[in-house]
C-alpha cells in the first residue's frame, strides 16, 4: 500500500504556469487524472514520477521526497506517454532489459511474468519498432510491471488503442486496483475515466479543479443547469405545470420529447413528482441527458 502526496505544488516554465498550487493525495485503487490537453496532466505525472522538480511545494511517496531519489523506482512503475522505446530490441529483450536495470534477482522470470500479464508472449520475439500502437502500449506496461511495483503511473495509456485493446488494458488496470496497488492514469477522454476510476482528479488550466468520485463531482455542481428528458402520460400538461415553477429555466416540447432545463437540481427533483401528482400525470421516464462526464467537464472548463 503506497500513497503519493502532492502538497501545494506549482511548476512553471519561465512565465508559463503548468501546474498551479495543486494539493492531492493518491492512495490505493484507481485514480483518474482528467483534463483537456494542456491542463498540466503530463507535468503532474512527471512531477509524481520524479522527472521534474516542483518549482514550489513537495511531492512525496509514503513520506519520502520523490525528486532526485532514484530509490523510489523500486516502488513506482512508469508508463510514459511517448512512443519511443528502444525499437531495435525485441519485446522480450526490452522487458528483460528493464528487469535487469531494476537489478532483480531473476530478471528472466520477471520478464516472462510481466509479458504474460499483458498477454504479449505471442509477439515477444518481434521487434518493438514493428509493434502496433496497442502492442507497444502493452509492452511498455510490461516494462513498468516487471518489478511488481505498488504504484503505477500511466500517462495517457489509452491513446491510440483500438476498443478491444482498450477493454483489455482496463481489465488489467482494474485487476491492479483490486490488488491494492496505487494506480494513477491520465486521460482527456471522459468515458475512459468514468468507466475505470473510482477516484477522479480534474485538472483544468493547471489547477486542481475538482476531486472525488464521479457522482461527488457531479453533486458539487448541482447549481448549474441540468437537462432532463421526460416521458409522461401527458407531456403538454406537464410542461405547462413545470414552467410555472421557478426552478425550471426552460421547457421544450419537441414532438414526443419533453425536455426540461432546471436551475436548481435539488428543488427540481422534489418539484417534478409533486407537480405530476397534482396534475394527475403519470411519469414514465425521467432521464438526465447530460449525466456524462463530458458535461461536468465542459462546465468546469467554462467556469
Amino acid at each position: 500500500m503506497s500513497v503519493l502526496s502532492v502538497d501545494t505544488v506549482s511548476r512553471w516554465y519561465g512565465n508559463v504556469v503548468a501546474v498551479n498550487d495543486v494539493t492531492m493525495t493518491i492512495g490505493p485503487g484507481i485514480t483518474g487524472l482528467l483534463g483537456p490537453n494542456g491542463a498540466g496532466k503530463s507535468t503532474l505525472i512527471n512531477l509524481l514520477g520524479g522527472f521534474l522538480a516542483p518549482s514550489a511545494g513537495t511531492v512525496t511517496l509514503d513520506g519520502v521526497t520523490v525528486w532526485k531519489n532514484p530509490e523510489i523506482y523500486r516502488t513506482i512503475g512508469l508508463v510514459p506517454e511517448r512512443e519511443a522505446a528502444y525499437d531495435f530490441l525485441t519485446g522480450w529483450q526490452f522487458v528483460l532489459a528493464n528487469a535487469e536495470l531494476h537489478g532483480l534477482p531473476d530478471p528472466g522470470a520477471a520478464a516472462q511474468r510481466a509479458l504474460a500479464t499483458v498477454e504479449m508472449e505471442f509477439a515477444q520475439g518481434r521487434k518493438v519498432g514493428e509493434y502496433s500502437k496497442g502492442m507497444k502500449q502493452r509492452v511498455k506496461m510490461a516494462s513498468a510491471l516487471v518489478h511488481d511495483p505498488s504504484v503505477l503511473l500511466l500517462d495517457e495509456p489509452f491513446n491510440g488503442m483500438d476498443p478491444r485493446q482498450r477493454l483489455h488494458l482496463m481489465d488489467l488496470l482494474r485487476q491492479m486496483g483490486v490488488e491494492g496497488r496505487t494506480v494513477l492514469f491520465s486521460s482527456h477522454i471522459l468515458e475512459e475515466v468514468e468507466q475505470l476510476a473510482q477516484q477522479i482528479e480534474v485538472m483544468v488550466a493547471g489547477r486542481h479543479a475538482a476531486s472525488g468520485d464521479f457522482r461527488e463531482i457531479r453533486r458539487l455542481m448541482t447549481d448549474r443547469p441540468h437537462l432532463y428528458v421526460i416521458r409522461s402520460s401527458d407531456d403538454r400538461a406537464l410542461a405547462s405545470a413545470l414552467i410555472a415553477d421557478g426552478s425550471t429555466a426552460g421547457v421544450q416540447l419537441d414532438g414526443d420529447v419533453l425536455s426540461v432545463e432546471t436551475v436548481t437540481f435539488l428543488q427540481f427533483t422534489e418539484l417534478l413528482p409533486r407537480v405530476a401528482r397534482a396534475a394527475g400525470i403519470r411519469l414514465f421516464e425521467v432521464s438526465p441527458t447530460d449525466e456524462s462526464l463530458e458535461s461536468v467537464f465542459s462546465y468546469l472548463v467554462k467556469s
Partner: protein
Amino acid sequence: MNGTVVRLTYRALLGGRRAWLLLLMSVLLLAMAVLLRVTVGVDHQITADFLGAVAVAALVPLFGLIVGTGVIGPEIDDGSIVYVLSKPIARPRIILSKFLVAACATVLFAAVPTFVAGLVMSGTASRIALGFGAAALVASVAYSAIFLLLSVVTRHAVVYGLAYALIWEGLLGSFVPGARTLSVQQWSLSLTEAISTRDLVSSDVRLAVAGVLLAVVIVGATWYAGQRLRVLSLAGEE
C-alpha cells in the same frame, strides 16, 4: 558501471547505419594513407602533417562528436531515456557506462585507424605512428567525455560541439595562440611531441600541464554529466 546500460548503449549506437558510416570514414583515412605512401613514398614530415591535420584535427574530434553525443542524445530527444532513468540506478553509474561505450567506440574507429595509418606511412620509424596513435587515443577519450556532457546539458549538443571543434580548435587556434592552451587537440599533440623521437610536431602546451588538463577534463566532464543527469527534466508533451 551497469552491464545492461552498456549493452543497450552499444546496440543503439552501433546497431544501425552509424557503424557503417564510422567504419567507412576510418577506411577512408587508411586508404588516403596508403595512397600517400604509394605516390609520395616515405616522408615523415608528410606523415606528421597528414596525421596532424586529417586524423587528430578532424577525424578524432568528429568521431568524438558523433559518438559522444550519440550514446545519450537520441535517447534524451525521443524520451526513451526514461526507461533507464526510472530505475534505482545511481545516475553517475549510467553516465559512466555510456562514457565507457563512447570512449571505446571512438578509440576503435578513430584512434586505432590513426595508429595504423601512421604505420602504413612511416612504419615504426621514430615512433611517429605511436606518437600520433597515443595522441588520438587520449583525444578520443577526452572528446567522448566532453561531448557526452554536452548532450546531457543541452539538446543542441551537436551544434555546440561542432562550434568548439571547428571554430575554437580549428579557426581560433590558428590565429589566437592563447586559445591553443585550452584545446584538446594541443594537449594530445604534446603527447606526440614527447613520444616521437623526431621534431615533427610542436605543441603549445607542456606535457605535464597537458596531462593534468586532460585528466581534469575527462574526470570533471564525466562527473558533472552524472550530476546533470540527476536533475534532467523530461519535459512533457504539453
